[in-house]
């Protein structure tokens, strides 16, 4: 197990997000957490099965859990930042207990609340989100130290029958684009993408 303190290379959130999106061929649902997680998901290209949060900080994983339970035959992926996840750590234990067949969790850890001015999060000071996830019961939680590891972990996660969490230490690049700002449109488009609204 790689510990986060040993990771020296910083990866690109946009690059990792593009590597994720390029693998999605089966209408997988993706939930983007607020801020840059979302912005890079948007910039990686439009998909009808993407859901973009415009608030409710910390709820990307819970929303994805609800989706995974409702649609057990569809893969669901959630992308969350370190600041957001720190706000809702209890959800890791909930997901571990429910253990949905089809849920993959991605954490983009830059150690800062980037959008609000770069204030440092607890991960900058040593909190290890992979260790926290494992301690919460998500045994398949791992740091991706480089892009090759990220891709390998992702391929394993997307074929698994229980939740996997993959975290990466990322650089300070801002999100590439901003999402649409109309929540009703985002929700409606997403549901049409999932086939739950016609």
């Amino acid at each position, binding site marked *: 197990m790689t510990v986060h303190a040993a990771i020296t290379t910083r990866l690109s959130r946009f690059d990792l997000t593009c590597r994720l999106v390029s693998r999605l061929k089966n209408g997988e649902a993706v939930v983007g957490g607020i801020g840059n997680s979302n912005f890079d998901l948007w910039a990686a290209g439009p998909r009808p099965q993407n859901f973009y949060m415009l608030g*409710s900080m910390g709820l990307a994983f819970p929303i994805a859990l609800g989706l995974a339970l409702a649609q057990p035959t569809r893969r669901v992926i959630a992308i969350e930042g370190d600041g957001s996840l720190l706000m809702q750590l209890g959800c890791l234990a909930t997901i571990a207990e429910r253990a949905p067949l089809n849920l993959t969790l991605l954490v983009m850890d830059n150690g800062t609340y980037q959008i609000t001015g770069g204030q440092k999060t607890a991960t900058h000071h040593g909190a290890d989100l992979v260790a926290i996830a494992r301690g919460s019961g998500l045994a398949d939680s791992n740091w991706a130290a480089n892009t090759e590891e990220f891709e390998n972990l992702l391929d394993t996660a997307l074929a698994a029958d229980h939740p996997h969490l993959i975290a990466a230490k990322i650089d300070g690049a801002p999100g590439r684009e901003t999402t649409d700002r109309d929540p009703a449109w985002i929700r409606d488009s997403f549901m049409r993408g999932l086939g739950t609204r016609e």
Partner: protein
Amino acid sequence: MPHWYETVIEVFKRNEIRLVTYVPDKVLAPLIKAIEADDYFTSFIPAREEEALGIVCGGWMGGMRGIVLMQTSGFATLANVLASLAVPYQIPLLMMISERGTLGEFNLGQAMVCRTMRPLLSSLGIETHTLSRRDELDFTVDRTISQALATHAPAALILSPLLTHAKRQEA
């Protein structure tokens, strides 16, 4: 006459409410026990009410109807996620709130937080009904749920001690 929670379960089933997330509460306990014992429902306990709300919102978008059960004090933690997720995204989030803090409360904190509940629901424009009478229970729960689903709007059902006959608390 059925118990209040038996009526609630019947109405949930009539409206295909299958996903139930909750933070435990003594008054809700008989409802929770009956739901947990019934295979129709997928029910479980997230760590906090915000999480419970997120799960039910995600479930509904995925095609599975649900409801969040909580106590008054738990509802008070939800202002931001109601205002930034359920309401603007037009998600028919259903909430059933066991009302503490009134009609014989001994805990000042509960009494104070209870006073924030209806003003918050009102200021967000969330359809709210207080359940206090057995003879109106089926109608009110059923129609509140069906309206929420039809109009894509959140709704709150408040379980009054008048209905649940919460035990008299001694100071």
